[in-house]
């Protein structure tokens, strides 16, 4: 073993308080050290060339760099070692700058400590093993969980790069929450007009397959090799045969409240959620269909010209492999029934923003007329209440949902458009309109559309002779306000989907106490998670409006495509490894591994001449935390790069 020690001056950063020459001489006296020198800037090109020449000249096989912190130049010196013909993992650094020269002024003590730190590095490097980078094959396909605008945009970007994407959507059609909107702020484009073309491009793209009316059952494996179990719920309609002619759902006798229309309108048992549904294939709601409940009717099957209806279709479980996963599971609304002040949700005329969207929508249940759900009369005085659930630690959410101020302003505008003598009153705490043209939009609603903005909270809503009496305060004028409103629209906040924790556990990604998925780093890695290969987009990470959602969708797609373009993913070889002879199969490591990166493996034990189970590390999944090595009583499992021998050698040299 021939070790080369290279002590860096780092200009004066080190040389000022550490006698680098003497350190280099002392290091030369250490056992197994063949060559030791100093240079002003070891990380510079001349410095690195010095290393390369020294390696050639003295046939060095291991290198110790005494300079700055590894978090700065570990990669640099590893590449330099590789170019010099030394395995990159036979190089160790002694941090004699941040941990020595900068923090100790006494020259004698600093020099002594620098020598000891080099001795530690020498001890460690003497036990290093040459390691090769790990390469994991990448499955060239991306799974997108959720078919809202986030999922659709991701699918379009992935398909654009000619890589296959699979959209997994729980509802019968893609489109998500946005499909229910009427207009979008601030441009007032009709939501369907800007969404449907994207849905069509997705449905026609040969790179995108859609599993609608399907749920995710389980995820196994790791980046590059995710195995996902999908349950395709029985649609009772054969997608390939059905042309979407609509004969069936026009004849179906059943009328039940439509979830898509938030219960304002009705739908049949065999139905498509909304006219522009993609795929434009109906689904049979087995809870309400007369055939499934009472074995009666069956009209749809009879009149279907293409025999697409198949009552005894069963759920289908399929397994597919993916290289990356984009989570776009979206949001749901805060349940305003927790507020007694607003009547615990018993007033039919106290609706949420989405109800208003459905009413405003021309293809909605009310054909665009803003009416009072209780008696169907057109609503004249409408009160909008902001921050319902948001910014309320007691009964609601601690965070601000970001976009309610904007959609309420839009609603106030739509109200005026649909009924010119209607009057909107908006109770708010602060108007948050930070996006592009957002503030101007709100200003326009206040000035041109006469919306009355009252800064104050509503203390009570109660019904009196058919009207909703809204009691609130106007803190700017100090007056107590009482408005007899025809309709109250509650701007409920955005919360995570109810099954978000379940999905997070399946994907091994962390989530915060509001069940919103946690990003790898709030500033520097907002669309990634600490589980490599799993990316986040849209409101499932935190409430977002459509522009931000589309932006994060494209960002997540780039991250996923980053994996797709490589046929093999290079990974640091600093992963755990099991010594079969020593492992007793107690699997304390499997229980302790937070990344389920260890599996049971059956081997033929020569000594006992029997098959037995031992632990096996999945190199792709292992993040190298080393927790299993500390839990293993017989030290059968060891971590490359920070192995027991390396650390124990460092301890001996202390």
């Amino acid at each position, binding site marked *: 073993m021939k070790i080369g020690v290279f002590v860096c001056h780092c200009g004066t950063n080190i040389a000022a308080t550490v006698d680098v020459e003497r350190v280099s001489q002392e290091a030369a006296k250490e056992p197994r050290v063949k060559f030791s020198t100093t240079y002003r800037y070891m990380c510079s090109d001349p410095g690195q060339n010095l290393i390369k020449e020294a390696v050639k000249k003295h046939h060095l096989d291991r290198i110790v760099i005494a300079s700055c912190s590894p978090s700065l130049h570990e990669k640099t010196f590893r590449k330099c070692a590789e170019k010099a013909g030394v395995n990159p993992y036979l190089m160790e650094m002694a941090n004699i700058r*941040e941990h020595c020269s900068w923090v100790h002024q006494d020259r004698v003590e600093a020099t*002594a400590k620098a020598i000891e*730190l080099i001795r530690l590095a020498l001890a460690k490097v003497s036990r290093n093993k040459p390691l090769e980078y790990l390469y994991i094959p990448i499955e060239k396909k991306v799974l997108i969980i959720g078919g809202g605008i986030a999922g659709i945009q991701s699918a379009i970007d992935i398909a654009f790069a000619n890589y296959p994407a699979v959209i997994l959507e729980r509802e019968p059609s893609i489109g998500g929450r946005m499909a229910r909107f009427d207009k979008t702020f601030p441009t007032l484009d009709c939501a369907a007009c800007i969404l449907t073309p994207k849905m069509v491009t997705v449905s026609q793209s040969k790179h995108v397959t859609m599993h609608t009316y399907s749920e995710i059952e389980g995820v196994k494996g790791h980046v590059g090799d995710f195995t996902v179990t999908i349950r395709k719920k029985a649609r009772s309609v054969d997608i390939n045969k059905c042309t979407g002619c609509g004969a069936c759902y026009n004849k179906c006798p059943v009328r039940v409240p439509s979830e898509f229309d938030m219960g304002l309108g009705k739908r049949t048992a065999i139905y498509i959620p909304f006219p522009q549904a993609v795929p434009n294939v109906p689904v049979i709601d087995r809870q309400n269909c007369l055939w499934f409940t009472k074995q009666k009717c069956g009209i749809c099957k009879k009149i279907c010209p293409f025999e697409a209806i198949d009552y005894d279709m069963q759920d289908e479980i399929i397994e597919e492999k993916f290289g990356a996963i984009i989570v776009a599971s979206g949001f749901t609304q805060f349940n305003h029934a927790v507020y007694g002040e607003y009547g615990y949700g018993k007033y039919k005329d106290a609706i949420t923003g989405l109800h208003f969207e459905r009413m405003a929508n021309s293809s909605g249940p009310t054909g665009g007329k803003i009416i009072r759900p209780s008696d169907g009369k057109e609503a004249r005085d409408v009160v909008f209440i902001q921050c319902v659930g948001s910014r309320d630690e007691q009964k609601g959410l601690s965070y601000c949902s970001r976009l309610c101020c904007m959609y309420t302003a839009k609603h106030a505008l739509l109200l005026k458009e649909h009924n010119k003598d209607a009057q909107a009153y908006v109770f708010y705490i602060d108007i948050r309109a930070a996006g592009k043209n957002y503030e101007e939009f709100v200003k326009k609603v206040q000035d041109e559309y006469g919306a009355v903005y009252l800064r104050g909270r509503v203390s009570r809503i109660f019904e009196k002779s058919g009207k909703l009496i809204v009691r609130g305060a106007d803190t700017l004028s100090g007056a107590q306000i009482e408005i007899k409103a025809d309709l109250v629209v509650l701007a409920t906040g955005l919360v995570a989907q109810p099954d978000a924790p379940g999905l997070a556990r399946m994907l091994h990604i962390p989530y915060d106490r509001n069940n919103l998925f946690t990003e790898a780093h709030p500033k520097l890695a907002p669309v990634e998670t600490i589980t490599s290969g799993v990316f986040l987009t849209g409101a499932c990470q935190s409430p977002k409006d459509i522009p931000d959602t589309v932006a994060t969708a494209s960002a997540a797609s780039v991250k996923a495509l980053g994996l797709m373009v490589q046929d093999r993913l290079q990974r640091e070889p600093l992963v755990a490894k099991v010594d079969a002879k020593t492992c007793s199969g107690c699997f304390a490591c499997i229980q302790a591994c937070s990344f389920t990166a260890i599996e049971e493996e059956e081997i033929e034990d020569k000594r006992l001449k029997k098959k037995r189970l031992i632990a096996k590390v999945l190199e792709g999944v292992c993040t190298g*935390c*080393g*927790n299993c090595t500390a839990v293993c009583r017989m030290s059968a499992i060891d971590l490359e790069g920070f192995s027991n021998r390396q*650390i124990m050698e460092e301890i001996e040299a*202390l």
Partner: protein
Amino acid sequence: MTATEGSPERKRGKDKKDWEPRIVGFLCKWCSYAGADLAGTSRLQYPPNIRIVRVPCSGRVNPLFVLKCLVNGIDGVLVSGCHIGDCHYSEGNFYARRRFVILKRLLEYLGIDPRRFQMSWISASEGDKWARVVKELVEEIKQAGPNTEFRKGI
């Protein structure tokens, strides 16, 4: 060179006066090691008695490492990791916390001065806390005195 002899530069004073404590710190590379780096970049001064061993996570530190250090005559051992909830590997420090409370109480039960083995949570932005912890540690170990329990190699 074993700790008992120590490097030639460091005098092996027998009595407490001119004895300098030898302390080892197992620092997790994502938080505490970065915290120590920050202390460096902010030029915070602290006594040179501590030697840092870099580990990927506080969860990597095996109780036998701490035991090996104490038994080799090291005067003080510190294990430092990310604050609970910040761990880069999400749960490493939870396991470390549970493992080392057992070891610490056992060592104390067997007569090892509790000050000799300590733990701390230091995040990558707490350079000042790192300098403070090292100062306090050196002070406490100075009071605890040299590790005579295992020094004489009995």
